């Protein structure tokens, strides 16, 4: 790994070590905005890390930005970093200015649609978007949809739009946003805007899950080496060793799948690589979390040990922006439509 990447990771580690102690996590889960943590991220430009430099980015390439995102997920950080990066990328791709502050995106649920209506003076957005991540705490949302059959991206204030706030299993807010002829602050065409939002969201969740799996494995190794039963650390038992070897395989495969998708998606999300990543990493999330908890025994079944900051995220993120079945099915249909003999030539081009 390059020195620059090492420095980047150290910066991310420092911010989360300083600004993300347990009380901050707990108050965030209770619905409070982690202002100091977010400010620290903004100060080093991580919120803008995925933007091209001319759009106000911090000069990192996309791989570096995803490395930082992955590390934030490794730390189980209760912040909408992925959502802010994604929203900013959509705005920048459509040539729109990226406002300061945390951002979210809508719609995020398959089947949810927002309607853009072009008026004489102003274009408005209407409709409901369910389970918008951090939708109640971000001042702006980037909305994607169509106008006259063309993909569009717009920027809208979320003020007064939140109708109800649920949480995902990790305690991160998921808000119902309802817009009723709400004027857009900006609007511009972007090819396949809605599909792009979905695929890029799936990519970011894959990257985040790879980070949470890495952390889960580390928690397991630490715990297994410290926990003594029958007179020796449980890490010395072959049953535990084999379980963690399997978890290591899931974590390594997740990293490889997420890396491949990031590499292929520098400018626009690559349908194949993202489908592979969300399918493969989503599967590893469930299987990996199961092993991690089994190894931790009753201790991991409490909120006293920190394992749950990783595993509750894994159990949430695998179902966001399309679960494994959704992406497997898309991938499977595409492969079947191309025919059996086209599979190898396609795979070997990757």
């Amino acid at each position, binding site marked *: 790994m390059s020195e620059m990447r090492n420095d980047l990771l150290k910066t991310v580690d420092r911010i989360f070590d300083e600004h993300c102690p347990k009380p901050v996590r707990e108050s965030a889960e209770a619905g409070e905005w982690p202002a100091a943590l977010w400010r620290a991220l903004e100060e080093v430009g991580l919120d803008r890390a995925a933007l091209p430099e001319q759009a106000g980015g911090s000069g990192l390439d996309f791989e570096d930005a995803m490395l930082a995102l992955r590390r934030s997920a490794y730390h189980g950080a209760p912040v909408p970093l992925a959502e802010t990066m994604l929203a900013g990328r959509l705005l920048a791709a459509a040539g729109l200015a990226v406002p300061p502050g945390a951002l979210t995106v809508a719609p995020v649920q398959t089947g949810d649609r927002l309607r853009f209506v072009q008026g004489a003076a102003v274009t408005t957005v209407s409709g409901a978007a369910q389970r918008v991540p951090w939708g109640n705490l971000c001042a702006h949302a980037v909305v994607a949809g169509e106008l006259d059959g063309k993909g569009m991206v717009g920027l809208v204030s979320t003020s007064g739009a939140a109708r109800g706030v649920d949480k995902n299993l990790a305690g991160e807010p998921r808000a119902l946003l309802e817009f009723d002829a709400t004027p857009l602050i900006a609007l511009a065409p972007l090819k396949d805007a809605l599909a792009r939002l979905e695929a890029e969201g799936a990519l970011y969740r894959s990257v985040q899950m790879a980070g949470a799996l890495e952390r889960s494995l580390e928690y397991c190794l630490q715990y297994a080496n410290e926990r003594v039963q029958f007179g020796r650390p449980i890490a010395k038992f072959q049953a535990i*060793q*084999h379980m963690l070897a399997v978890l290591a395989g899931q974590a390594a495969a997740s990293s490889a799948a997420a*890396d*491949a998708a990031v590499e292929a998606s520098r400018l626009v999300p690559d349908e194949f690589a993202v489908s592979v990543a969300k399918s493969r990493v989503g599967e590893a999330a469930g299987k990996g979390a199961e092993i991690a908890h089994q190894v931790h025994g009753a201790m991991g079944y409490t909120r006293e040990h920190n394992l749950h900051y990783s595993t509750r995220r894994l159990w949430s993120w695998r179902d966001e922006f399309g679960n494994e079945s959704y992406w497997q099915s898309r991938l499977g249909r595409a492969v079947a*439509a191309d025919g*059996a003999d086209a*599979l190898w030539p396609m795979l070997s081009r990757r």
Partner: protein
Amino acid sequence: MHEFRFEPVRMPAAAEALRGEVRAFIAQEVAQGAFTPSRNSWSSFDPDFSRKCGERGYIGMRWPKEYGGHERSALERYVVTEEMLAGGAPVGAHWIADRQSGQQILRYGSDRAKRTILPKIAAGVCFFSIGMSEPDSGSDLAAVRTRAARVEGGWKISGTKVWTSGAHQTNYLIALARTSAKEEDRHAGMTQFIVDLSHPGVSVRPIYNLYGGHDFNEVVFDEFFVADDMVMGEAGMGWKLVTGELAFERSGPDRFLSTYQLLVESIRAIGGDPDERCANEIGRFVAHLATLRRMSISVAGMLERGAQPIVEAALVKDIGTAFEREIPETFRHLIPTEPTLGEGAGYAELLGMTILRAPGFTIRGGTREILRGMIARGLGMR
């Protein structure tokens, strides 16, 4: 703790050019009826095909030209092997010699061994078997009981090797034998020897496998003489050599493509408009396959850089062979078929053969349990 990093590797342009050549070669062979794409690629023994591969420079690709090699990169070799496997080519005759034995001779063989044997391997006319397992020594390889005693000018080997694939058809094997009594360090005192199977003093008896095929053998040595210049490295170095040899065995595309033909034929049988369940399963396997391939190529990149990715190779083999085994278990539900070994039964035969071969995938080249132990050691647990 060992950090598992599967760094991305970009295939060089030369490797992609080679891919086109290999694919055209395989297509031409199939068109001429030389072989039908096999369900058993690297276990199909076809000396004619191996000779053609040798002529085309597809064997011993990384070795120096002075030994008949082609001085190409690990990634170019990777492309050739994966194209052969995906194309179902009968590469079994030269597979072991190319994958590990030749590599081992190049590194540790005497000058005579290198000069006399490597060019023949590269030409596709000299084939090897593996001489590791014994009746009482499988996963516990250090328990080998085959002994070699010092004699004038060489060694005399006595003992029995089993599960020796192809020994009834190959020219040589590399035998691991004990050359001094067991000490406290049970890994000390072993040596690898190149054994010429055409010489007297060795007998080969078939052991039929689960699907009724003759692939395995029992190989018995009775005071079999091996000259000093057929010793690998120094006497007593055997353990280090044999573990290094196993690393070559473990990360290649042969560890996740064994049932690729069944995947392809299943997709064909399901057709272009799959139902939801079929689409899910196809998508899931393709996602696994694409990921495994990336990890395996990454290990080839590590080999290219001169690293010894022993733990990474074990990890790729563990998840790769699990993937291979899942393919028949899943598609038998989606394409209800009673499996058979009846020739000409099409999909049912392919499924039958695959089911009966599958248990071997997670045993050969190091069992799943041995690999997980190695991974755990890499994680710092042992």
